[in-house]
């Protein structure tokens, strides 16, 4: 398997091997290895999830009403989205209907997460792949101010503001204690921004760090805290009381006003800072259109944000549902989480064991037995791995496939599906950006496209927060203040056995939870999460996952400074704690050591 073709890529692992471990500025632990040819172009890519926590094993035998709290702890970055998928899975299994207000509040919380997560990703996890902090020292503050004022009405843009910031930055650098900016790839030729754009971006890096903490206060109001707000099977835990005695102990007018003001301020920040920055930065990189990977071939979205409560059909979801395969942009396939033929997970290249590893298993019937085995071509030892062997098992991430296809998920997948479905909410903003940057539609299938789609989605989500806030207020005016349905709260009212699936579109992509309940306890719990899709290793057919595909054929300016690799991997916003956890349905002992 040294040289072969798959999904339109020619893999060749004979060139110089470069290892990047750890990949920083992500959630969790990830390793990437690539082979470069004589011209420093990536000809083989290997992505490895390097952590496993076994959360679904831990869920077995517990109260299904508690599952949201456990699964929420899968990830503190996309906090709440697992809890949402979990309560939906339990409600699906037990046929529990939630009140309209609960649907609106859940949507506001999920959209709030999208706004926060996308903003933090762009500025604090991704920006340093495009922005050279040290170059900002050479900027002319006056020209920086002109640049900032030419792209936005954001008021913090005077020459004095940028001069002051630059002086502080200069002194910070001169102190010799560079903190998080130490050993960055400053001065690398892959950085393309002029000093003024770099200085503006550094200013907004700091402003966004200050502002993000305001956005999440919506979670705090409805869920009590952030990260990890509280959720409830059957609705939301916060009661509403806007008229009567005791309102101060519930969601009241003051709380609603606070939500409303945060909604407005978030929209303002996204539209006056994030989007203008994104377009400005993109305009300098529009010649660098690598990293498309699977995005032009196979993308998947489950959809999310139900307009009305309890209707999870595609037509009621504001984020699109569907699958595109084989690069056929004329057709969006229907997606069904419960169809055993659609979603299957494979483990032939993952550190798990199946009875028959040529076959995949649907999540309802998932088997997981850890099996940490390294291939014979590994360099190093079991506890000091220098280079992995991708012809054998090489990741703690399983390989999910949709009807046999490796898929990309996330904001770009959602926007492509929305675009192909001719949904104006997704098509029009994409067309506007393409026109503004003067690039063709194909430019969307790139690292930059992924980063742009995330920004557009952040803006979309900020608007939809307002929509659902207005909807909540409309409902309160009409006299409905219900937030929870307790008819089936008591397990005595549950069937002896039940199973259900819950889904959400996490900031990073399609998220599914599958639950089997027996005698009021969790009998089986399985999650297939966005980074399991994107960070997937190979499958029995040798098909590569989205991370691996996206790195293929990218030239690297300096082989010992993996800036281009980081840029493309970060564009997916990887979340490794999410991707690596699975269930052993029969509770077998989970310890297998095999070193070949």
């Amino acid at each position, binding site marked *: 398997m040294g040289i072969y073709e798959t999904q339109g890529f020619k893999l060749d692992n004979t060139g110089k091997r470069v290892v990047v471990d750890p990949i920083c500025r992500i959630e969790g632990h990830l390793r990437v290895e690539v082979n470069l040819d004589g011209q420093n172009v990536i000809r083989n890519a290997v992505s490895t999830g390097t952590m496993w926590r076994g959360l679904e094993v831990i869920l077995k035998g517990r109260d299904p009403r508690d599952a949201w709290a456990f699964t929420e702890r899968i990830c503190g970055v996309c906090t709440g989205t697992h809890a949402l998928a979990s309560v939906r899975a339990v409600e699906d299994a037990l046929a529990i209907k939630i009140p309209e207000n609960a649907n609106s509040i859940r949507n506001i919380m999920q959209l709030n997460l999208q706004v926060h997560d996308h903003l*933090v990703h762009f500025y604090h996890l991704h920006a340093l792949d495009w922005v050279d902090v040290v170059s900002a020292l050479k900027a002319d503050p006056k020209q920086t101010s002109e640049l900032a004022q030419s792209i936005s009405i954001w008021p913090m843009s005077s020459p004095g503001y940028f001069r002051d910031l630059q002086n502080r930055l200069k002194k910070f650098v001169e102190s010799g204690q560079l903190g998080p900016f130490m050993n960055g790839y400053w001065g690398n030729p892959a950085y393309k921004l002029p000093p003024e754009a770099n200085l503006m971006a550094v200013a907004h890096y700091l402003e966004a760090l200050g502002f993000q903490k305001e956005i999440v206060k919506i979670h705090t109001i409805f869920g009590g805290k952030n990260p990890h707000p509280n959720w409830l099977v059957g609705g939301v835990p916060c009661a509403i009381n806007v008229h009567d005695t005791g309102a101060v102990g519930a969601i009241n007018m003051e709380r609603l006003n606070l939500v409303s003001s945060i909604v407005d301020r978030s929209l303002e920040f996204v539209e006056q800072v994030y989007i203008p920055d994104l377009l400005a930065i993109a305009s300098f990189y529009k010649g660098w259109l690598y990293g498309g990977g699977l995005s032009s071939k196979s993308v998947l979205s489950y959809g999310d944000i139900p307009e009305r409560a309890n209707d999870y059909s595609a037509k009621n979801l504001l984020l699109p549902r569907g699958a595109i395969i084989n690069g056929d942009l004329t057709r969006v396939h229907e997606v069904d989480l419960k169809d055993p033929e659609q979603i299957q997970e494979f483990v032939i290249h993952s550190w798990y064991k199946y009875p028959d590893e040529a076959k995949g298993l649907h999540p309802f019937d998932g088997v997981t037995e*850890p099996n940490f085995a390294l291939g014979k071509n590994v360099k190093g030892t079991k506890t000091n791995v*220098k280079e992995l062997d991708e012809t054998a098992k090489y990741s703690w991430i399983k390989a999910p496939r949709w009807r046999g296809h490796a898929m990309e998920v996330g904001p770009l997948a959602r926007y492509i599906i929305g675009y192909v479905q001719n949904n104006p909410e997704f098509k029009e903003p994409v067309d506007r950006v393409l026109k503004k940057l003067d690039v063709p539609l194909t430019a969307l299938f790139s690292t930059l496209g992924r980063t742009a789609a995330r920004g557009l989605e952040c803006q979309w989500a900020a608007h939809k927060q307002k929509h659902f806030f207005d909807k909540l207020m409309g409902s309160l005016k009409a006299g409905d203040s219900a937030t929870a349905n307790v008819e089936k709260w008591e397990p005595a009212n549950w069937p002896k056995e039940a199973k259900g699936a819950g889904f959400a579109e996490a900031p990073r992509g399609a998220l599914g939870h599958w639950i089997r309940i027996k005698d009021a306890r969790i009998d089986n719990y399985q999650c297939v999460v966005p980074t399991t899709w994107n960070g997937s290793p190979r499958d029995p057919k040798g098909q590569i996952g989205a991370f691996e595909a996206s790195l293929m054929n990218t030239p690297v300016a300096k082989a010992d400074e993996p800036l281009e690799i980081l840029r493309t991997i970060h564009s997916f916003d990887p979340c490794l704690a999410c991707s690596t956890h699975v269930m052993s349905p029969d509770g077998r002992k989970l310890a297998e050591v095999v070193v070949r």
Partner: protein
Amino acid sequence: MVETFYETLRRQGITRRSFVKFCSLTATSLGLGPAFAPKIAHALETKPRTPVIWLHGLECTCCSESFIRSAHPLAKDVVLSMLSLDYDDTLMAAAGHQAEAILDEITKKYKGNYILAVEGNPPLNEDGMYCIHGGRPFVEVLKETAKDCKAIISWGACASWGCVQAAKPNPTQAVPVHKVITDKPIIKVPGCPPIAEVMTGVVTYVLTFDRIPELDRQGRPKMFYGQRIHDKCYRRPHFDAGQFVEQWDDDSARKGYCLYKMGCKGPTTYNACSTVRWNGGVSFPIQSGHGCIGCSEEGFWDKGGFYERVTDIKQFGVESNADKVGGTVAAVAGVAVAAHAAVSALKRARSGSGAGKTEQGDR
């Protein structure tokens, strides 16, 4: 010549006036009173920035996310001005061998003088390879980095107790930091995650007084973890009056009555949620209608369901501290907090304001 913390602040354009204001705010938020402000100011004026290495084991990054939510001090001021966050996988620009070179440099250059902050924990099964860092088990990197540190901060429930991955049956054998590092002072800052201002409060305390805060028997700073959520809960009067939420979204829930019967773990949880509150003081779980799930307590995942009433603990007074109750839990079982509730209600009834009467009076 390394700069002092104060010089750093001044260099970054912070005025003397705001510096003094910051010091008094810090003194207040630490519960020290305004008299301590000059002491804090003096300490900050004379010290260089302390290097911090922040490692991540098995975790979910909620601690980092919480940390950057800090409102006073702001996370950017902590990271860029108060200390030198030289290594943190989540925020640092570098990756791969450039990142690993920093670990090497800081541990040598600042031998004995850097703080190790740990988020998450090491799994021991499979020779530690359930969490791989640079091709090696995380537990090895943790031990190497801890060797020459000054002190360790164990962030959150993972590093302090084990948290969700260590819940039964703990398939990876994830263990808290103090199980593998036994020769260093360790400050546990539990919670899932801890409150942002508690995190920065602990850091500021260490930098200010150049010592670790006073810890309880379980290793938690007494200043933030010395009292139960129940002790200072604003719904406590409803508990004492016997006014409870009986069902989600019932009339009592809409009045903000006590959540004890809905499984609230406030009576057995030591944390600052009901006083400091969350996200700049906006709310905390009970205020938003859900009981406390006890996320700062050891093994909280395995103490019964989150909606089961706390009944396995002896009644105790408000003045009780974590050490006493820790001992009580171990020694006594089966005497219900329900009795505590009943007694409280009874006391009120005797003093002439029974539960029913109060409820009427509410309207």
